């Protein structure tokens, strides 16, 4: 249960990290290490080199832009969970972070690391997809590009980045006053991987009809799945609609569990609960805060 040998680099700048990454396609970036070191201890991962980016303090910063919150890749889950600005501007993200592992894990694990790790049962990939986040990616070989969260996750622990690319910043759209959110996760006990989970972002127009709807689910396929409620735009929200939508969406999941029917029922329940919570938050006018 000890890591295999590897070369260790601790760059002092993003540019230096990118240069090291471009030199060795087998190198792995180490941020908080809460997923990578587990894999290395179990020798499921044996990178030739570890590039420890934990000291790149600039990537722990948070910028409040007009429509987005721009978070450095090294912002920890604990910061996402407790930062008042994040709780106000992207409450779904803040709430989802509470469900990540345990406090010692959240103290060190990072937003960028979780997204790069691409675990289909993880909360941050789900939240990024549900919220329509954008990853800013840099490379010493190909320069900069942006990757939408829904384009980031390809399969189990597989993202769409090239080996020489690194996530540096994540833009998360801030919640609008007419929007509500819901996040629901079912686990055997707090901190366990969720058996099912759903995140919902709902917008209603002044007549209280559905104006926009995005939802994502975790642990229901080899990647976080996104559902867009395009076919219910203009309809009135309510328990019947939510139940119908949750069942239709859950039927499109691809669970890899022993009992896919059970997984789909759990997924439908989580979706219905999250949709209801989103509607309630708009009714109570607590969309942005609660």
């Amino acid at each position, binding site marked *: 249960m000890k890591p295999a*040998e590897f070369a260790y680099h601790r760059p002092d700048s993003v540019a230096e990290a990118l240069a090291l990454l471009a030199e060795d396609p087998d190198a792995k970036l180490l941020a908080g290490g809460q997923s990578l070191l587990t894999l290395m201890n179990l020798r499921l991962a044996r990178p030739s080199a570890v590039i420890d980016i934990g000291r790149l303090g600039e990537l722990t910063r948070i910028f409040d832009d007009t429509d987005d919150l721009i978070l450095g890749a090294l912002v920890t889950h604990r910061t996402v969970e407790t930062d008042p600005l994040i709780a106000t501007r992207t409450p779904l993200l803040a709430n989802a972070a509470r469900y990540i592992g345990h406090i010692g894990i959240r103290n060190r694990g990072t937003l960028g690391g979780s997204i790069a790790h691409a675990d289909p049962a993880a909360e941050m990939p789900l939240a990024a997809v549900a919220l329509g986040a954008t990853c800013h990616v840099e490379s010493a070989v190909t320069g900069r590009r942006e990757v939408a969260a829904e384009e980031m996750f390809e399969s189990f622990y597989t993202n769409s980045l090239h080996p020489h690319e690194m996530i540096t910043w994540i833009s998360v759209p801030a919640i609008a006053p007419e929007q509500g959110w819901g996040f629901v996760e079912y686990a055997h006990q707090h901190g366990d991987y969720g058996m099912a989970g759903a995140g919902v972002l709902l917008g209603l127009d002044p007549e209280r009809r559905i104006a926009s709807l995005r939802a994502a689910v975790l642990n229901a396929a080899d990647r976080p799945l996104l559902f867009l409620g395009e076919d219910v735009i203009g309809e009135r929200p309510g328990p019947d609609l939510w139940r119908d939508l949750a069942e239709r969406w859950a039927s499109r999941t691809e669970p890899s569990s022993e009992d896919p029917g059970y997984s789909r029922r759990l997924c439908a329940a989580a979706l219905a609960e999250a949709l209801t919570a989103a509607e309630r938050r708009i009714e109570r006018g607590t969309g942005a805060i609660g």
Partner: protein
Amino acid sequence: MTGENSPGAAAVPLVVTINGRRCERTVPARMTLADFLRDELGLTGTHLGCEHGVCGACAVFIDGRSARACLTLAAQVDRCDVVTVEGLDRFEETGRLRRCFSERRGLQCGFCTPGFLVTSVELLRDPDREKPLTEDTVREAISGNICRCTGYQGIVDAVLDADTSE
């Protein structure tokens, strides 16, 4: 620092403060903080259970926040301030907590105790937590620490007692 087959090349110089004392060493890159504390420094209070982040027995403070020493490389704590269970007396909550663990029979075999103490001290010191603590809050906070004697009830009682007896 190149070549995975040349162990000498993957050695990392390290300057770190452990329990208030400055410590300078060169460590293999692949050495975890837990092994560094136990094998290099003889601080064997930090226990190793699962070695992949599940059991919480290796919890220590790094720069004032709890972390798993098995999921941290020694190289990562260069220039950091580390506090292990041996150094917990610097926090005024520790004596009270220790007494409550004893009174409430939260100690059991004691293997998990260092991790529980670190996690509980962090919880008692957290300025953002609800006051007073509830059983649910404590259970959620210590959910990352496993007690193989299933002594949870005594531990929860001890943390609640330590919270209200401050």
